[in-house]
Structures are given as C-alpha cells and as structure tokens.
C-alpha cells in the first residue's frame, strides 16, 4: 500500500465546495420551513396563562402518580390539537380567554389541594380546558408558513411543557417537595385569578 497517497486537504476542500455548488433542480421547493417550526414552537410558550396551565397538568399528573402521570399528558395534546383543529377550521368557541384563565385557576387549585378525583374526572377536566387552549392557538396561527412544521413545533413545545411539569413534580417523593408543589399550585391559581380578572373585565 506504499504507492497510495493520502488526499490533500485542499483536494478534499475542493470536492466539498464543488459538491455544495451543485445546481439544484426545481422540484419540491419549500419555503418557510424553519420559520414554521420555530413559530410553532414559540407559540405555546409565548403566553404565561398557557404555560402555567400546561405545567400544572404535569405537576398534577406527578402528584396523582401512575397512570395519571402519563395519561394526562397524552390526553392534553390530543384534545388540544382537536381544539386547534376547530380553530383552524373556523368553528367558533365562546369564552376562550375566560376558559383559559379559569383552567389556570382550577388546575392550580387542584395542585394546591393535591386533589385526587377519579381518573376519568381528572382526564375530563384537563381535556375540557385543552380544547380552549387549542382553539386559541388554532385561531392565532400565522398564514404563509409550513402548516406541518408549525404543527410539529407547536405539539413538541406543548409536550415539553408537560414534561417540565412532570419533572418538577418528581419532588413529590419528599415531604418538603410535596409542600413546595402545593405552594406552586397556589401561586398558579393566584396568577390564574389575575388572568381571569383581566379576561372578564
């Protein structure tokens, strides 16, 4: 193998530049892909009322333990997406802002009281409010961006907010953690009351 020469760095660079310089064919041109993903990702975290409600879902799930800890975060994105579908399709829903604020109040209270209703009732409560959260997002989706990439960013951000709540909720195993979670729930409920006051005023 002594006759073989290693390729020179310049030669490799030349190959790289030539490869990058290839003229593209005009098939499958897509536009606004990255912007679509990032604006979708940003949307759920852009409003504090949404953030508090979604993190509270994770906190409550962590307090309730299995199977609620995974059932609630499964229910919320799917039902929220259904609400988003309604908003996108132009189906009106009354009192969206009030319901979103109310969700923060009630979910905060559930965490503060460490409420343990039947699983179906907890899922129904979370699902009911998820429709309003989704509807609000659906009606606010900006035009001119990739619908799919926007949706992916949107759902991933929502799911990560729930996971954040669940991760914080892991402190529930310690006595001080249980107290801290209840205090956090009370703070969410207080903030939700402020949003509710603004929504109905």
């Amino acid at each position, binding site marked *: 193998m002594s006759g073989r020469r290693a390729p020179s760095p310049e030669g490799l660079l030349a190959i790289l530049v030539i490869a990058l310089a290839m003229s593209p064919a005009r098939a499958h041109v897509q536009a606004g892909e990255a912007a679509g993903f990032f604006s979708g990702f940003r949307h759920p975290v852009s409003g504090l009322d949404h953030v508090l409600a979604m993190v509270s879902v994770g906190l409550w799930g962590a307090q309730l333990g299995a199977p609620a800890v995974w059932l609630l975060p499964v229910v919320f994105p799917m039902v929220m997406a259904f609400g988003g579908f309604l908003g996108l399709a*132009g189906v009106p829903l009354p009192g969206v802002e009030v319901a979103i604020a109310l969700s923060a109040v009630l979910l905060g209270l559930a965490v503060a009281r460490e409420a343990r209703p039947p699983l179906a009732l907890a899922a129904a409560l979370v699902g009911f409010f998820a429709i309003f959260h989704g509807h609000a997002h659906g009606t606010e989706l900006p035009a001119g961006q990739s619908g799919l990439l926007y949706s992916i960013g949107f759902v991933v951000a929502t799911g990560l907010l729930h996971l954040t709540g669940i991760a914080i909720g892991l402190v529930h195993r310690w006595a001080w953690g249980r107290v801290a979670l209840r205090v956090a729930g009370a703070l969410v409920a207080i903030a939700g009351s402020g949003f509710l006051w603004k929504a109905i005023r």
Partner: protein
Amino acid sequence: MRTRLPGAGTWTFFAALLISGRADAHLVTTGLGPAYDGIGHLLLTPEDLVPILALALFAGLRGASAGRLALFVLPLAWLAGGLAGLNLGRATAAPVPALSFILLGLLVAADVKFPDGAVAGLAGAVGLVHGFLNGPALAGAGPGALGLLGIAAVAFAVVALAAALVVSLKAPAARIAVRVAGSWIAAIGLLLLGWTFRTRGAIPTVPGMLVP
C-alpha cells in the same frame, strides 16, 4: 529554503469557490444522483417520514415478528405504489398525510393489539398510498424510479432502527414514552388537518407535490 508552490488541489479549491452557485435552502435535490435525491426527499419530507416512523413504532410495540414483517412490506409496498404513481398518479388535494398521522398516531398511543398480519397489511397500505402520491412528483421533475429506490432504502432503514429500538424496550415507562410520542403524532395530524381546511383553495399539503 524553497517556497512550496500551491498544489493543484489549492487551485481547484479556489476555482471551485468562483463557480459556486447561489444558495437555495430546503431543496431536496442533492446533486449526487437520483437515488440520493430519493433519500434526501424522504429525509426532508416529514409528511412521509413521520408516518413511516409511526408505523415503525407501532410495529415495534407489537413485537419482533410484526417488526420484521413491516420492515420488508413497507418498502416493497412503497416501491410498488411509487411505480404505479409514476405512470398513473397525479397530485391530489386529499389530506392523506394528516390522516396517516392521525391513524398511526392513535394506534401507537392506544397500543392497539393488532395481529402480525394486520400490521403487515397496515404497512402495505401506508406504503402503497404514500408511494403512489410520491409518483407524480418523481415523474414530473424529480429523480424518477431510481429515486423511489432511495426512498424505499431509507424507509427500510428507518423501520429497522425504530422498530428494533421499540422491541428492545422492556421498561414500562419506556413503552409509555413511545405511546406519548404516538399521541404527539396524532395531535400533529389533527392540526395539519385543520391547516388543510384553513388553506383549502390554496396549496394543499401533499408529499412531493410541486410548489409553483
């Protein structure tokens, strides 16, 4: 001490810099040939890639034998559907990707207990439909039949990796994480369906469709 003159590689490098074309983002064409264009198409087209991933997750949840069936049935069906689409297909406004996301995502989220044959049938249906929809774009301005081969190869690799990963998961929490991923996929499909309604009359979201 003699100064070393730049080699041919250096001159080629600078010459190549001078001929660089304009940068166009988000084009699937790789410039490396039709098979690579097919590979690039699938990797950069979530409308096709996510349903394959969802199917692989579902097949993995159903076990190794179902995963093996999906591994071979999906790429072959994609190839068959694509070949049919190359000759017969035309772009459609039907929200096929959204419906695939919803159906496959729900199956994963609910961990529906399908027999192996049904998983293979599902893989065949997904491959045929999505492959058929790829056909018109590949025939019109894309890489043609060789591109289909690239797509089928990536589909094979994605199913092999994802299904094998899921089959290997034994901890209940890990399997639940897969089901949560399924719920996310279904949620994305629902939003995409709503988006299709909203943009009805504008450009429909169909894999591989040419955008003017």
